C-alpha cells in the first residue's frame, strides 16, 4: 500500500483511483487472473494426455479397452458439459472422501450415504476441518482441474481419434512394408503425421477451454468472476472506498481480458498451423509449396 493511501477518505481524483486500484482486495483480484492462467496451463496438457489415452484406447485391439475408449469419447455428445462440471465436482469429492473413509475411519463406521446426508468421520474429511483457508481453495482448484481434464479430455479424444483415422492408410502400409512393428508404425509414422490433422480441432478446443474458465466460479473457486462481483458491488460509507454499483465496469474488464486472450491465441495458433502444414500432403501444404515457387 502506498503512503498517500493511508487516509482513503481524504483523497480525491487520480490519487483516489490509484489507491483504490492498489488496495489489498484488488491485488487479490489481479492474482486471480493468475489462477485462471494456471488452470489453463495445468488443464491443457492433462486434457491432452487424457485425450491421447482415450483415443488410443478407442483404437485398441482389446475389446473391453476399446469399449471404454469409445464410451469416453461418446460421453460428451448431446449432453451439456456444465452438467458434467456440476456432477464431477460432487462425485469426485464424495469419491475421495469415501476412499479415505475406508482407510482412516474406525472399523464399523456407517455407510456414508444416509438419507439426505453424506457423512464420513471427522478424520476422513478432505480437507480436514482444521485446514487453512488456503487448503480449501487449493482443494477446490484441484477438483476443478481434474473435472476440466476429464471433460476436455473427452473432447480431445474425439479430435485425436479423428486425426488418427485421417492419416492416409498408404503411409502406414509403407511403414509395415519396411518391416516396422505395430508399435513402431504408431510411434514413427502415425503420431508425427496426426498433429497436422488434429490441429484445427485442438485449436478450436483451446478457444473453448479459455471460454470455459469462468465456470471455475460455479465450482466454488475464488476466480476473476468472483472478485468482479465482490469488488464491483455497491460499497457504502462503511468501506474505505465507497462507490456505486460498478459491476458493469468490472465485467467489461473481464470481457476485454477474454477477447485479448482469444485473439492472441488465434494469431499464435495460426502461426503454428502454418509451420505444421509445411511440406505436408494437404491443401494448405500444397498452397505453401506453390507460393514458394
Amino acid at each position: 500500500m502506498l503512503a498517500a493511501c493511508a487516509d482513503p477518505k481524504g483523497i480525491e481524483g487520480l490519487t483516489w483511483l490509484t489507491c483504490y486500484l492498489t488496495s489489498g482486495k484488488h491485488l487479490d483480484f489481479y492474482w486471480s487472473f493468475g489462477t485462471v492462467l494456471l488452470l489453463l496451463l495445468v488443464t491443457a496438457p492433462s486434457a491432452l494426455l487424457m485425450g491421447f489415452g482415450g483415443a488410443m484406447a478407442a483404437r485398441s485391439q482389446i475389446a473391453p479397452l476399446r469399449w471404454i475408449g469409445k464410451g469416453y469419447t461418446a460421453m460428451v455428445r448431446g449432453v451439456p458439459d456444465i452438467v458434467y462440471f456440476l456432477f464431477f465436482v460432487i462425485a469426485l469429492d464424495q469419491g475421495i472422501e469415501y476412499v479415505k473413509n475406508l482407510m482412516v475411519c474406525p472399523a464399523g463406521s456407517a455407510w456414508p450415504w444416509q438419507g439426505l446426508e453424506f457423512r464420513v468421520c471427522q478424520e476422513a474429511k478432505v480437507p480436514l476441518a482444521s485446514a487453512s483457508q488456503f487448503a480449501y481453495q487449493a482443494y477446490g482448484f484441484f477438483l476443478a482441474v481434474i473435472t476440466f481434464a476429464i471433460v476436455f479430455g473427452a473432447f480431445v479424444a474425439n479430435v485425436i481419434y479423428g486425426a488418427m483415422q485421417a492419416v492416409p492408410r498408404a503411409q502406414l502400409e509403407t511403414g509395415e512394408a519396411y518391416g516396422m512393428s505395430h508399435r513402431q508404425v504408431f510411434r514413427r509414422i502415425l503420431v508425427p503425421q496426426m498433429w497436422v490433422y488434429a490441429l484445427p480441432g485442438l485449436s478450436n478446443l483451446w478457444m473453448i477451454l479459455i471460454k470455459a474458465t469462468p465456470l471455475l466460479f460455479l465450482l466454488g473457486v475464488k476466480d476473476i468472476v468472483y472478485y468482479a462481483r465482490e469488488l464491483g458491488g455497491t460499497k457504502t460509507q462503511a468501506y474505505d472506498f465507497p462507490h456505486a454499483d460498478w459491476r458493469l465496469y468490472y465485467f467489461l474488464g473481464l470481457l476485454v481480458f477474454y477477447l485479448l486472450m482469444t485473439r492472441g491465441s488465434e494469431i499464435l495458433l495460426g502461426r503454428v498451423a502454418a509451420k505444421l502444414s509445411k511440406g505436408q500432403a494437404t491443401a494448405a501444404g500444397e498452397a505453401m509449396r506453390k507460393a514458394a515457387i
Partner: protein
Amino acid sequence: MNSCLQTIQDYGLRSIGIGENLLPKTDFTLCQQFTLIGSGLIWNVYFGALALVAGFFLANAIALAKTARNPWIRKPAEWFVFVFRGSPLFIQFFLAYELLVLLPRSGIEVLGITVQTSWLTKAWAGALIVLFLNTAAYSAEIFHGALRSIPKGDLEAADAYGISGWQKFRRIQWPTMLRLAWPSYTNEAIFLLQSTTLVFFSGFPAFRQQGDALYYANYFADKTFNPFIPYPIVAFYFILVTLVVIYGFGAVNRRLNRHLPQNMRAKIRLRPQVIR
C-alpha cells in the same frame, strides 16, 4: 403409480408457475425428480427455439454484411461476431444483466409514453436477448464461411444465364449457402440448446424458483447430496432433445440436398463441442 400421476399434475408445469408452489423438501422420489427436471426443460426449449429462429435472420444479415465491400458495413459486422464469439457466454450473461439492471426502474419516457424496462432484467427476456445475439454471431460465421465456399462454377453459370443482383442471391447463392452450412448449423443448434443451461447459473436469478432443467437438478443434488440421480436425468432429457433436433434438421437437410445425386449429399455429423 397414482401418486406419480399426482406428482406430474403438481409439478409438471412448475417451472412456468403452474401447480404446487412449494418444491418438495424431503422424501424425494424418482418420479418427482423426473417430473420437475422435465418441467424445467420447458425453459431450455423456449430459450433454444426462440433464440434460434430469431438468430437465423440476424445471422443471414450479418453474414451478408461481412461479405460487403463497404467497410462501414463490414467492420461492424466483423466486430459483432468477434465480440460474441471471442468471449464466454457466461460473462456475456453477467454483463447483460448488469447493463439491464442499470436501466431506470420507473421506465424510460419516449415521446410522452413511459416504456417499462423492468421486464428486461427477467431471465425470459434478458437471457433470451443474449442468447439471440450469441447464436446470431456463431451462425453468421458459419453462413459467412458457406457463402465463401459456394462453387465458382455456380456463380459463373448464373452470370451466363443473365441472372444477377437480388435474383442471383435469392435463387443461387442463398440456397447453396444454406445447403453448405446446414450440417454445421445443426451442430450450432444443438450447442445453443445446451448452453441454455447456463442461464440460471449466471447473472439472471430464477424468479420464484422457476428455473430450467439444470436448475432443478442442482436443487435436488444440493438437497440429497446425491449427484448420481438428478444429473443423469438431465443428461437423459438432453439426449432426447438432441435426437429430436437431429431428426428435424435432418429433414431440412434432405430437402436442401434433394437435387443432388445420392453420393454428393451432405451428411449431418454430430461434432461435439462445448459451451461457449
